[in-house]
């Protein structure tokens, strides 16, 4: 029944664009919201056996989807982040037609992401990555202001480069595999290990994913795209799109397809560490709220890749968990930036101050997100970072562990700078009248904050049942 995750949004798009009179944007909003929330809830509460059932139309329409725990974590994150973006979009986009377009594109992105996390074919992977990417291009350029266009164009160029690299790699793998399914490719890579072309193919694919995921030094497009995109789109992009397109695929391929190759591990750890450091340092001196968050994304993605590169089950579990956490807390941060942007009309944090007293919910939730990002207990981010660091230590990568954990101090530094400049400090005269941004921003913010804290507090249960059974963790 996994195909429902693709077909329902698809049918929704078609239905929403039928020439019917009335508030189609409200319908679109409700549909998208319920779909994304439903996705999250269904994944969270329904055990996997329902999804293992074959589609009843499987006879003539076979999509060949597949789901494991990693997929479910991703589906959950996608559901949460998309619903968040949907809510924020309702609040920040005022024009009716624009709203409708926005929801259509969000549905397309949803299809793209859901497809990406469920498929088992390396070429379909490309197709759905492109679905996600193209909808993202349009979403970034949604308001057609110059910065957004610039961001979108850079994204297109770099994304195209990534695509070319990945396709070249697919072509090269095709030489050995005889098919494009994960199983075939995996078998081909295993049986031809050491072959020059295979190594090149794997490297190129990983490079392409690095570009998609925005890891240093492949990250050039990311700050521009994130900071120029409309508020709701930034949430989507930072929260989930690049994570699915870059990081999920990386995890999937490295874990399931390419297998544990020590060179890949080393490269991943190197790039991950590099991203952690550069992202955090770059964020330190920014004045733009969203740009700080963008660089922060780079840095946090570095943690995920570092955990992945560690290669041990614990490391991969940590990476997945951090991926989930990152999508939550980064969405929350972007929600708050959206609230601030909406109310002040700017993302320049030097011009703000003292908003905490006027926007108490944003203030409080932002704090929670900051702590989660910096890895301060009892927020969720702490546990995932802890698992990653434990994994690194376990494998003997002491230096990486030390760097990873020390950079969280820098992380805290730049995030505290946001909090200090935006929410604390003295309220400027021209911002005296400011209010909370609106119900559809507050609700997702509070929900996400609750998720962060809930995940943090329930971590022991969660880790045992959901991510991986490491019973001796607390002993």
């Amino acid at each position, binding site marked *: 029944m996994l195909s429902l995750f693709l077909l329902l949004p698809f049918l929704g798009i078609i239905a929403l664009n039928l020439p019917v009179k009335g508030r189609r944007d409200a319908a679109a909003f409700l549909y998208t919201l319920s779909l994304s929330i439903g996705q999250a809830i269904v994944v969270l509460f329904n055990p996997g056996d329902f999804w293992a059932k074959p589609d009843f139309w499987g006879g003539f329409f076979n999509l060949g989807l597949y789901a494991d725990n990693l997929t479910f974590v991703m589906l959950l994150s996608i559901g949460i982040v998309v619903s968040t973006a949907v809510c924020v979009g309702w609040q920040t986009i005022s024009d009716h037609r624009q709203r409708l377009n926005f929801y259509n594109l969000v549905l397309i992105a949803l299809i793209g992401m859901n497809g990406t996390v469920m498929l088992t074919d390396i070429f379909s992977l490309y197709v759905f990555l492109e679905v996600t990417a193209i909808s993202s291009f349009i979403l970034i350029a949604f308001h057609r202001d110059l910065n957004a266009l610039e961001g979108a164009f850079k994204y297109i160029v770099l994304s195209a480069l990534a695509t070319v690299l990945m396709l070249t790699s697919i072509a090269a793998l095709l030489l050995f595999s005889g098919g494009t399914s994960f199983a075939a490719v995996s078998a081909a890579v295993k049986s031809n290990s050491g072959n020059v072309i295979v190594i090149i193919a794997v490297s190129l694919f990983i490079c392409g994913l690095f570009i998609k995921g925005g890891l240093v030094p492949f990250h050039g497009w990311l700050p521009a795209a994130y900071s120029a995109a409309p508020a709701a789109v930034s949430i989507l992009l930072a929260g989930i799109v690049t994570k699915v397109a870059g990081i999920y695929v990386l995890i999937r391929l490295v874990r399931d397809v390419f297998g544990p190759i020590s060179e890949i591990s080393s490269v991943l750890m190197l790039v991950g560490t590099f991203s952690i450091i550069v992202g955090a340092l770059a964020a330190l001196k920014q004045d733009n709220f969203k740009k700080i968050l963008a660089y922060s994304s780079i840095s946090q993605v570095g943690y995920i890749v570092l955990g992945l590169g560690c290669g041990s089950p614990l490391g991969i579990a940590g990476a997945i968990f951090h991926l989930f956490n990152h999508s939550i807390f980064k969405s929350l941060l972007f929600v708050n930036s959206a609230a601030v942007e909406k109310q002040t009309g700017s993302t320049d944090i030097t011009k703000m101050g*003292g908003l*905490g*007293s006027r926007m108490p919910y944003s203030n409080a939730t932002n704090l929670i997100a900051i*702590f989660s990002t*910096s*890895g*301060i*207990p*009892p927020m969720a981010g*702490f546990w995932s970072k*802890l698992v990653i*660091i*434990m994994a690194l*230590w*376990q494998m003997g990568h002491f230096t990486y*562990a*030390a760097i990873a*954990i*020390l950079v*969280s*101090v820098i992380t*805290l*530094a730049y995030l*505290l*700078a946001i909090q*200090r400049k935006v929410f*604390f*400090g*003295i309220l400027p005269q021209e911002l005296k009248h400011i209010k909370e941004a609106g119900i559809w921003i507050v609700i997702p913010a509070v929900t996400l904050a609750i998720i962060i804290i809930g995940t943090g507090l329930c971590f*022991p*249960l969660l880790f045992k049942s959901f991510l991986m059974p490491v019973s*001796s963790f*607390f*002993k």
Partner: protein
Amino acid sequence: MDNQLILLLIVLVPTVGSFVLPVLNCVSVKARNLFALLFVLTSFVLTLAILPVVFSGQTITANFYSLTLHADGLAIFMALVSSSLSAIIVFYSFGYISHYENQNEYYLMVVLFFGAMMGLVFAGNLIFLYLFWEITAITSWRLIGFFREKQHVLRADKAFLVTMFGSVMMLLGFVSIYYQNGTYDLAALKGSQIPNIAVILILAGILSKSATLPLHTWLPDAGVAPSPVTALLHAALLVKIGVYVFARLFIATGFVIDPSWHTIIPIIAATSALVSAGAAMLETDLKRIIAYSTVSQIGFIFLGLSIGNEIGVVGAMLYILMHGMAKGGLFLCAGIVEQNTKTKNIMQLGGLIKTMPVTAVSFLLCSFSVMGIPPFGGFFSKYMVMTAATQKGQVWISFVFLAGAIMTIVYLLRVFNLVFMGQSKTQPVKEGSPVMIISVALLAALSLAGGILIYYPSHFLQITLLQLPGIIR
């Protein structure tokens, strides 16, 4: 009631209760204040309730899912000290904080801080210890940055970052211990051998939290906080957290470490005591001086703990108690002075004893306790830690600390002289509000009582000693 449940309640009542306070504010301000005090007192009373059990030489261990709580004499002692002091400080804030905005946040953070402190004190697992450790960091960050001026928030951030730096190092240390021994559980870690790198890492955390050289300068800068906060943070609880964790890990759990640490840590402590004493001598900001003094005194506590023999440990624990009361009193007095004169610069103050006699006398008495003059409690603790050093044959260290003690006397008298004696340089000021002066007088009286009734805490700690395998006998 079940002892284990009591243990859980001690931690949970303030921790969870703190989040109820902003809600209570909707009912009435008085209710909120009252409940804040009540939550703290509940912990205090409950701790007293399990005191007899521990007094009879037993320990209590409680397991709730992964949360392991463990109560031995050391923990009970620390819990009693911090809860009683917190109660006084919360009481004092009724008077002090009532003039300012963000009171909800204040009470939430104070009570949450206290709850986290209780959690940390009773934590039986390294990870949960770290968890509560960081909650205290968060709350203290908010408390330091209570006033929203840029400078204040910046200082708060600095404090947060420096302690965070230390704590992540400590976390690395914990992880390395985990892989050394395969467990985070303190009971299972008893008496395990700890590599030097882990000691360094853990020490970084402890030093940063306890504001010891070279990670100490956040503490004087944190003096921008409202006074009860600084009292709470600096004197009573926050800086003691690091010391307590040191005791918890290296003495109560009895990590076996390289013997050279018993020389190295006293050297660090001595340097810290001296450097900060020198700084206290030259500072002109009242709260900064007291903060530096705190840094200096923490050195003494570390001396006792790191020497690690019986008298040293007992002395250090007594030091925590006595210094908590006395330094808390000093900060609260400084708070009264600051609030009534609107300045913290001691050069602009003078002659306040005429109009603020209670404050002045309390300040003086608390100073005596900090200096270590009998019959105040500070005398015994100071004597015991210094003797601990000589007892181990490290006479030269006690000489360094002698210099520190001398400087303590000099700078505290200097402060008293400048602030309370001499010509009045400010507008005529009134004595603080009754709630506030009762608090400071109470702390001064407690400092005195601590000395006169020294038998009881000392006796209790000697019972506790049996539970501490890490003592060097």
